[in-house]
């Protein structure tokens, strides 16, 4: 601390050490020793001695008592013994001089030491904080109106989904993203296997305008077939857009994707069909496997995360596509939904494309001629992997997100085992009466009353005893049900996420 103040005093020119070094300045002081100067010198010496003895600059106390201003609270910084010695006491003499002489005629500004005003309870007032946030919001609204998109178009989000364990996780994420979109939104949710209450109750929480339709096929178990069924579901949604003549920008929000909010601002710029860059997150239970795969390639692909999307040349014109290279992962990818291997996307995913909904309409005059009609695709042989198949030539696609340089959404597929079960609507009803700590492993030298060999039998017996031990309510007419509940808690829980609903049998 002392060293730093010395350094500071060296560095900063406004120090007395500098002043002392220039003879010119000292010439301003009188060279004649008058009684006044002798008096000041003596006072100076006495003040120095007192400060040395006390260990702090006592002059501050003097000023505090002599010149305290009228404000409510004067705060004096805690005394610093170092500062008192290193800083020359000359300054305090100047203060005395200056305080005796107010600056100029009729000026309310006085040179010299002032108190530091602090109000008694300086914590922010919550009402004011809210007002400040209101001001910020108003300013940002104005900025958006001035610099944002003029005439924003409705966003039509298409989401294929089906009921499974992770549906609530994924769909809630997409739903919250869509709720934050500042533009008008229509959400088309296509559900494999027909409309269910499960999905409907999830979607109803959004408050958005939703179109919830069912699709006659069930979602198959292998990823290949699943991608195909999803494509069919999306086409089904596009047919709805055509039938209802919905106007806006169609984007594909798969329920396990993650979206950047800037994506929705960017897609407003699309004229007919646009493409954005999609980051591919390859999930694998074995992370080392993925990193070893990446390292094997070495120089070829320096990007840690593969990105699909438009490729541009120097003048920002579309020249090609960055697609997903699945050769690296051949043989190591997941086939079935619950495989523990990375799930691979297709070459180009649907979610990287956005369409102007007028492309899908029937009988529209200004539709460009490079779009194939949806009706023409009505056939069993339709194998649409991505919307590029709807076009006669792919050069008309507009690259978005500063020509694909911004990754605006991320693709990921994570699913639980197909046989995993979960409580309906994730509500445990009626609530559990008893909670019992679960035991994963058996103690080798367990005392006889604890379950050891035959799990199920002993659990029955064990739970009875435990019900005696725990004082929460037990022996009622519902004891049978409570017993079965308890059994679920004490059963060994596997590594994969799988919970058991109340209705399962032993």
């Amino acid at each position: 601390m002392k060293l730093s103040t010395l350094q500071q005093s060296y560095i900063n020119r406004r120090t007395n050490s500098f002043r002392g070094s220039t003879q010119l300045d000292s010439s301003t002081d009188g060279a004649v020793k008058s009684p006044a100067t002798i008096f000041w010198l003596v006072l100076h010496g006495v003040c120095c001695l007192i400060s040395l003895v006390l260990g702090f600059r006592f002059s501050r106390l003097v000023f505090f008592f002599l010149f305290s201003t009228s404000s409510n609270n004067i705060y004096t910084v805690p005394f610093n013994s170092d500062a008192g010695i290193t800083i020359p006491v000359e300054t305090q003499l100047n203060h005395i001089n200056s305080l005796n002489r107010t600056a100029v005629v009729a000026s309310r500004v006085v040179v010299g030491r002032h108190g530091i005003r602090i109000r008694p309870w300086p914590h922010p007032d919550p009402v004011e904080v809210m007002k400040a946030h209101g001001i910020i919001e108003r300013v940002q609204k104005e900025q958006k109106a001035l610099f944002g998109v003029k005439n924003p178009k409705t966003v039509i989000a298409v989401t294929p989904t089906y009921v499974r364990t992770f549906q609530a996780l994924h769909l809630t994420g997409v739903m919250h993203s869509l709720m934050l979109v500042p533009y008008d939104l229509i959400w088309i949710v296509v559900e494999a296997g027909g409309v269910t209450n499960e999905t409907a109750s999830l979607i109803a929480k959004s408050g958005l305008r939703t179109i919830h339709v069912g699709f006659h096929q069930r979602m198959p178990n292998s990823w290949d077939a699943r991608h195909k069924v999803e494509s069919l579901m999306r086409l089904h949604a596009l047919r709805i857009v055509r039938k209802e003549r919905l106007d806006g920008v169609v984007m594909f929000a798969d329920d396990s994707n993650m979206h950047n909010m800037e994506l929705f601002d960017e897609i407003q710029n699309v004229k007919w069909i646009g493409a954005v860059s999609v980051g591919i997150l390859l999930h694998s239970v074995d992370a080392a496997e993925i990193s070893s795969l990446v390292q094997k390639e070495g120089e070829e692909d320096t990007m840690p995360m593969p990105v699909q999307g438009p490729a541009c040349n120097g003048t920002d014109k579309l020249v090609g596509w960055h697609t997903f290279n699945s050769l690296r992962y051949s043989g190591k990818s997941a086939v079935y939904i619950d495989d523990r291997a990375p799930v691979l996307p297709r070459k180009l995913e649907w979610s990287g494309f956005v369409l102007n909904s007028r492309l899908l309409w029937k009988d529209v005059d200004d539709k460009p001629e490079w779009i194939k009609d949806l009706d023409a695709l009505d056939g069993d042989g339709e194998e649409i992997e991505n919307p590029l198949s709807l076009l006669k030539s792919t050069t008309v696609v507009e690259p978005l997100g500063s020509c694909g340089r911004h990754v605006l959404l991320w693709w990921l597929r994570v699913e639980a085992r197909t046989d995993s079960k979960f409580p309906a609507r994730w509500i445990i009803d009626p609530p559990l009466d008893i909670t019992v700590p679960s035991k994963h492993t058996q103690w080798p030298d367990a005392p006889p009353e604890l379950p050891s060999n035959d799990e199920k039998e002993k659990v029955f017996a064990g739970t009875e005893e435990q019900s005696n031990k725990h004082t929460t309510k037990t022996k009622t007419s519902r004891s049978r049900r409570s017993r079965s509940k308890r059994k679920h808690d004490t059963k060994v829980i596997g590594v994969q996420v799988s919970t058991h609903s109340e209705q399962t049998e032993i």
Partner: protein
Amino acid sequence: MGFWKLGFFGILFGAFLFSIDAVELRRNQPTERISGSAGDVLEDDPVGRLKVFVYELPSKYNKKILQKDPRCLAHMFAAEIFMHRFLLSSAVRTLNPEEADWFYTPVYTTCDLTPNGLPLPFKSPRMMRSAIQLISSNWPYWNRTEGADHFFVVPHDFGACFHYQEEKAIERGILPLLQRATLVQTFGQRNHVCLKDGSITIPPYAPPQKMHTHLIPDKTPRSIFVYFRGLFYDVGNDPEGGYYARGARAAVWENFKNNPLFDISTEHPTTYYEDMQRAVFCLCPLGWAPWSPRLVEAVVFGCIPVIIADDIVLPFADAIPWEEIGVFVDEQDVPKLDTILTSIPPEVILRKQRLLANPSMKQAMLFPQPAQAGDAFHQVLNGLARKLPHERSVFLKPGEKSLNWTAGPVGDLKPW
């Protein structure tokens, strides 16, 4: 014939400058013109309204000093050097002193720098005296009016008082030889010894190119409520506070260091300019002197300046309605700063932002090289033009003398 040539040249010059301006600061935001006579004054063209004669001083007063220390071109007092360069090639310059309205003396008094880059003003009074002695003995125009139609650029902390410490500056007062001249300075505080009547206050120099390279897109939402970066306690000279900034900066820190709405600290981030563009309010408190380059930065980046300096006189105050653009807070009201700022109605805030977005506002605060229409150089000339025509009393009758050449501290009388 000469008049037509000058006029044609002036129109060409103006058109050239305007075209540069169109490319430079293009903004799509609808801006509000500062209505009334004050606002349009910013766009006045001084060409044709005044004539300035530039004295040819030996290079020891200007070029040699700059050669010794080229850092003078980048610090906040660089306005004196750039003003000289601008006038040398400006359309208002005349080579005939008989027809000149104003006389300019190019002496760089703020270029004696410490190793750290801060100017030492100890030799400046002598330098100025020596320059004035030179022009009064070589040309008759100084003695004709005793300097009343001469102007000097003195951008240092306390102007022509030539000291960085306020008490010393007040003690010295303005250099006696300059008491009839017009001073162009950055310092401005009402009822202060170092602010002469009729002075022109200019903004401190801030590098325009550097600021323009740090611009971010307009649509980036402003999410910081109050922003400030700088010292609160000058640890080297005033560790306990209360003396530096009259205790105002320390009060800001002590009251608002825990307030999440206030983004204040002593750091030197590399994203300083970008952060200012993301803030709604930028604090511009006084330091050792009331003015600061923060005001220029706030105006250029569209952040509403919150000026905490009692009795300050802001740059070009007769042309720019600062009350409508910034927020003024008394030093004694600093503890209530958050109350004051949150109680400003949003419409008022939006209006201030519109006024700030006016490109002529931003241009008036800058010293670009080469000079452009409406910039600070032109505002200085506009200010000088507004003081014309000179009153009769400016010209001294024969035998009348009011300047005392031996006044002032003894040390100033030594030759330089």
